[in-house]
């Protein structure tokens, strides 16, 4: 192999890999969001058993490294006899990781809706399902936007961990290019800039949403 320098085509390769980072983030947010939503509902339900189970799940996910979730799903899946592409293990572990944090964020948002909203809607003869659907969740979702967008930034960054099992997203692409060019500083700074370009606008958006929420509620 001839030694290459970090140039235009290498940067193109990084850009391609960035698409996988974004895809992985989207997968994690969709599936992790779905699972996290169910856990958040369980966490705020009236059943003691459900609440305990959800709380345990959240504590568990928040108490172990993302890397361990990744390894366990990677080896767990292959143990179960599945010969699956790394995207699957990466996506599954990112979704599980995201679900534990989103569940906790959304629990807080559901509980931030005043108790009186439950009483008022209950008194209007709404069923529990209708209360959630028409009264509680619309308000909780509004509250949840800033922290959820903020958490998306964490997901984008944490997808870099999947490079450790060989999934070629942005960080892994950086490693590959570094192996060919031996210009680590230049390569990884470029990688960092690309992450920044994705994450910074999201962080700012989260901030703007947060401000707007506070203005809206104090009107």
């Amino acid at each position, binding site marked *: 192999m001839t030694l290459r320098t970090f140039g235009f085509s290498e940067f193109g390769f990084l850009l391609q890999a960035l698409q996988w980072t974004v895809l992985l983030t989207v997968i994690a947010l969709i599936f992790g969001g779905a699972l996290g939503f169910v856990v958040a509902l369980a966490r705020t339900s009236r059943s003691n058993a459900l609440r305990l189970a959800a709380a345990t799940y959240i504590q568990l996910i928040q108490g172990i490294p993302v890397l361990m979730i990744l390894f366990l799903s990677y080896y767990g899946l292959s143990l179960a006899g599945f010969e699956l592409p790394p995207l699957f293990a990466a996506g599954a572990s990112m979704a599980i990781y995201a679900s534990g944090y989103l569940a906790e964020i959304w629990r807080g948002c559901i509980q931030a809706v*005043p108790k*009186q909203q439950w009483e008022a809607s*209950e008194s209007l*003869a*709404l*069923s529990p399902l209708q209360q959630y659907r*028409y009264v509680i969740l619309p308000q909780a979702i509004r509250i949840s936007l800033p922290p959820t967008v903020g958490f998306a930034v964490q997901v984008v960054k944490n997808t870099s961990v999947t490079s450790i099992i060989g999934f070629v997203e942005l960080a892994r692409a950086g490693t590959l290019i570094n192996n060919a060019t031996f210009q680590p500083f230049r390569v990884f700074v470029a990688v960092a800039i690309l992450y920044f370009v994705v994450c910074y606008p999201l962080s700012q958006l989260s901030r703007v949403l947060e401000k707007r929420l506070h203005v809206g509620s104090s009107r």
Partner: protein
Amino acid sequence: MSEVVVENVHKSFGALEVLKGVSLTVGRGEVFALIGRSGSGKSTLLRCMNGLEKINSGRIEIAGHVLGGDAKALRSLRTDVGIVFQSYNLFPHLSVGENIMLAPRIVKGVPRAEALGIAREVLQLVGLSEKIDAYPDQLSGGQQQRVAIARSLAMRPKVMLFDEVTSALDPELTEEVLLVMERLARDGMTMILVTHEMGFARRVATQTIFMHKGTIWEAGPSGPLFADPRTPELRQFVKADVK
């Protein structure tokens, strides 16, 4: 014909007994005022009447429903019993019109056009027709409370419960809410209200119940009850209010 029958109701929060055997009967079209010091159990009694609090023993029948059935029976009861709270509790993400139309539409399945008609009608009743597209945070406290009343009325309740609905309002805003309630009473609505507005109770309520220490201490037609309290507790309570 009685619309509300409360028989020997007991209610405790933990070790604290809040209602110690309360009984009363409200006839159709009557207006009952529940008065008493805070902690006397009057709000709890009201909240028991639509199942927001579960009673420990006794029996409550309201608008033809007996409390204590399953969730479905309770919802059915609540379509016939409206309640208005001290803190309005409008749904902040919905406009005034949507607040009012929500329950008729999704609980009773009323078509949109018809629900809109109901909303216009009840808003006119509380004098807020022009606010149908406003959001709760654009309204004054008095206006919000009138919308809350309209929202309850849209379910066509047979009984209306009012839980200190003017306690959070300035005097001038209190007046506009009381006017709406007085009009409802004149139109023949069966009403039970927990209130600190003695003048209103005296003028509008057919009966006034003075609660003290979890029991009905003194009860009777409002006029005589206020004019000539029999118990020292009520005498002192009424006197304190005049000051």
